[in-house]
């Protein structure tokens, strides 16, 4: 299964990319994905420790780390917004 990660603002700048396509063999929880990403790149440690960042799964904010991610899901990393 595939999950698309979308990065915005300073996260995009820091990672030097706007998105990633993650391929997995089975469904995974948001918490498991976090650990997965940290093990691949320690910069994610910093990101996940920043409590100001919000995570949106298919345009809805994630409020439970145990939420399951499914094939085709889009997970967005959102630093505090600064529009207007």
């Amino acid at each position, binding site marked *: 299964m595939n999950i698309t990660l*979308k990065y*915005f*603002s*300073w996260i*995009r*700048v820091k990672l030097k990319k706007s998105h990633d396509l993650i391929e997995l063999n089975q469904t995974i929880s948001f918490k498991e994905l976090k650990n997965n990403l940290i093990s691949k790149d320690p910069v994610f440690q910093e990101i996940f420790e920043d409590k*100001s960042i919000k995570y*949106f799964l298919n*345009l809805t904010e994630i409020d439970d780390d145990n939420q399951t991610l499914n094939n085709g899901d889009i997970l*967005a990393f*959102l*630093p*505090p*917004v*600064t*529009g*207007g």
Partner: protein
Amino acid sequence: MIKIINDNFDLETEFKFVSSNTNGAYSFFLGTVRSDLSSSNKKIKGIYLECYEELALAQLSKIRSKAISSWKLNECLIIHRIGKLDLGEKIVLVITASSHRAKAIEACEFVIDSLKIDVAFWKFHLLDNDEKETVLQKNLDNEKMLKWKDIIN
């Protein structure tokens, strides 16, 4: 009406979209690119606006609906620009239309306050040395939003 666009827009043209003989009061908020930064002494030559467009449209739509129902507006238009903008250029326009002045004004302020803290736009300052600097969210904007909690549920 909600628009997320690169191009500049004309105030008279946008007003015509929401104009109707049954209104009587229109409140506009227009945000533009400032040359002087309150937070630092740095000079900027413009800004860059990043957006998660699908999400921003959904968030703006929710804010707009809330404003229309809470203040019984006849219309509400929101335009937000993205991409590179020069000093003085328009960034955001909110127009609320009502038969009652106080309602139009209050609803317009609610929309821009909500947009500032709840919609997926990110600003970068384009510095004189060609660097991009991430703009940080203002605590003031979050605090200002708290006042609406008592008014809107």
